[in-house]
């Protein structure tokens, strides 16, 4: 067993864990943050995507011990003081989710796309950058729409979401 300390969603956390504990296991089992999911075992589906030091990574392919001192943001840490993040709002507004299982990873990936590529995203860019996230329900149509709208909203220039959709 070994000890690891990191910041998760702004809070300092410490855990005593088996060295083989993956970040996703540390989040789900030690911290009971079950919003981060596991959908495959080959590092492809992206249900487990979280941000480490501001960058999207697959928490199923990262050892918790490798992240000593890191700052981790999960889906549970995206809303601030109960106010939803614009990307969360956009997914709801544009029906970018059905069963909800891929959704946390999808939203974390979406925020990362905006962080890297800015607020004006065309369809092709979004589709290409979703290469690491698999959704079986939506056919991606509404996810793409949600991310474009969420990106714009993150830029602060968006119309009120409901109005923009109509």
């Amino acid at each position: 067993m070994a000890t690891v300390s990191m910041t998760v969603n702004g809070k300092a956390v410490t855990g005593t864990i088996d060295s083989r504990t993956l970040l996703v296991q540390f989040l789900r089992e030690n911290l009971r943050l079950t919003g981060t999911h596991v959908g495959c075992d080959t590092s492809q589906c992206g249900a487990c995507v979280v941000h480490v030091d501001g960058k999207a990574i697959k928490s199923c392919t990262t050892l918790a011990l490798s992240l000593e001192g890191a700052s981790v943001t999960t889906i549970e840490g995206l809303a601030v003081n109960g106010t939803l993040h614009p990307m969360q709002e956009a997914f709801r507004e544009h029906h970018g989710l059905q069963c909800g299982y891929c959704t946390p990873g999808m939203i974390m990936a979406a925020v990362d796309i905006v962080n890297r590529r800015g607020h004006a995203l065309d369809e092709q860019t979004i589709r290409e950058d979703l290469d690491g996230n698999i959704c079986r329900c939506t056919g991606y149509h509404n996810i793409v729409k949600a991310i474009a709208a969420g990106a714009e909203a993150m830029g602060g220039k968006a119309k009120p979401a409901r109005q923009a959709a109509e």
Partner: protein
Amino acid sequence: MSSQSSSATGIGASVRRKEDHRFITGQGRYTDDINRPGQAHAYFLRSPHAHATINKIDTKAAAKMPGVLGIFTGDDLTADKVGGLICGWMIHNKDGSPMRAGAHPALAQGKVRYVGDHVCVIVAETLAQARDASEAIVVDYGVLPAVVDTASAAKAKTVVHVEAPDNTVFNWHLGNKDETEKAFKAAKHVTKLDIVNNRLVPNPMEPRAAVGDYDQGEGAFTLYTTSQNPHVARLVLSAFIGIAPENKLRVIAPDVGGGFGSKIFIYAEETVCVWVAKKVGRPVKWTSDRSEAFLSDAHGRDHVTHAELATDADGKITGLRVKTTANLGAYLSTFSSSVPTYLYAPLLSGSYDIPAIYAEVDAVYTNTAPVDAYRGAGRPEATFVVERLVEVAARELGKDPAKFRMQNYIKKFPHQTPVIMMYDAGNYGAAMKKALEIIDYKGVGKRKRDSARNGKLRGIGFSSYIEACGIAPSAAVGSLGAGVGLWESAEVRVNPIGTVEVLTGSHSHGQGHETTFAQLVSDKLGIPIENVSIVHGDTDKVQMGMGTYGSRSGAVGMSAIFRAVDKVIAKGKKVAAYVLEADEADIDFADGHFKVKGTDKTLDFGSCALQAYVAHKFNGQDLEPGLKEGAFYDPTNFTFPAGVHICELEIDPATGTTRIERWAAVDDFGNVINPMIVEGQVHGGIAQGVGQALLEGAKYNSDGQLVTASFMDYCMPRAGDLPSFDVGMTVTPCPSNPLGIKGCGEAGAIAAPPAVINAITDALGHEDIAMPATPQAVWRAAQKSLKRMAAE
């Protein structure tokens, strides 16, 4: 966004989903998120061989490994009198004898029959310990040759189950054989196709999981599981497998991360988890990883078919005949036998007036994972046969494929097909016209020429699908072999201040029932949608239900709610009559108010509810207090959603890459409660259908090893593989249920595969391509096209 609603949350409005808040904030609660105090973990030792006898399982060393609480085998199941898994649909052979079903133990008994078959279970303090112990178990296998190939399974020397010596589960048929033969003899032209409908792995993003719990004090079991139909799971686990009587067995299906059919079935893993919880005296959790899911989730499709279509001199379709072999895998999964029979052949008339149809279906056992219902279940296979035949016939006859379809559409309703179904309502021509407009059919010639100039091949393909949904009425499915009635139940509980809980036997795992059902109730009762909560997925809360599959939750589940709400309103009128001191016959209910006809005396719904519970204004002998009503709804017919999908795509003959450029979908789902959710279902269905056509295919090698056993080799559709879709609708209300709903969950998956393949073959100029049309396959087929073009 389209909207026919008068209110922002009423029927026809694209209400944003009530359930989304928990999902977008990471607060969804799926089975693997549930941990019970003292929980142990199960690991299944699975067969590495496709076919082998088990001579001995030596667990001695493993049992002493750290953390191990118990190791259990098929012998322990027998000792505890735990029954085998069942197939709930009886099919009869052509000669009237029953299908030949082999035993299906939850843990192997003497033999393993596919790679991934369950040899034994190890329960330990941690999953890692259970897995460590599994490696210390020594199994003495007698490896046997494997039967893998669908088409030749019946001729194989190896026998999967002694009960079926020629590996044939049943040989079944449907239709009018003699008339069909006559039609083909008289035909001017016969179109022939050999078709393989590729095997698919459903792959909902949430893998299956189960937590079994046993309360020693109460002598009662609880099973948390990833199920589309927890009540059916309880029924089977109780009445057939014998875990416990129903009153001592609670099944909870919490948030479920997609199902697509694969979570209908009652599998070995949840059966074992709930059984061993009592044996080890601890809650026991099992969560599938993706690799296990590939091996052990029921797969879909896997048909080999020869099909022929007869036409007369005018291009009128006069007959259709089909010979299909369906691979059901190593064991009969819960509804497997119904899929290539009653969910398949009755759809072979498609949208067309075909006077003579005859279908023969042989189902075979092989040493592969069990095959059962996957999104569409039988109907995609039928639609693929019909829509490929029709497209190819049009080409062979030199007719425009759209016009050829229009010529042969059924135009009068109701229409009795030669294969059981009585289509009740539809307007196929209207859908075709709308789809042609959306895709800009007139411009396709120019677009093809533009592509050709760039060295690309462009094609357009049609699919004019029909499906039968609802999987009811009960009497009808019962006469066809179903072991259960396929009605649905609902209970509407009004609380004293007028908020409402709706308990439904339908289960939501992505379909948005918490919103759509609430819309219906709020619209009918005239109360805010926030005041309506939907309760589902727990056998202790909802008394009974049949679950969600076959696009039935709208047509059947919501109809049950509709009826229960009607009963609530009727009871409310009685209460209001007392309160308003009027005759019950004079009470009207509209916009959330009970009103005495011709007066201004009214009682709002909430006040009525309060009066029903306070019960001061009436005599409890004359009228029972309370406001709670239930209904069981059994429809009068299947429902028949139909529509036209058109796919336009471009092939790069240099690499074989296929790019879908346009997609027009026009569907007739009858009346629509929430267009946003319905369109979402269409999108997702198309994506799975495109996946089948272009990307996905489960392959076993000749030893029965699954070679597409992870996302590294089994190609899941990604965002970049798909276009945005143009979705339109036409509406002919369904006459068979009070809401006029037909169902929308499977349409896209049914419609899409032939649309894609018809477009590819249009681009190629020949029919020689199978699903999945991977870049390699398309490249090879395109070389043939280029050679032909050069020769011309």
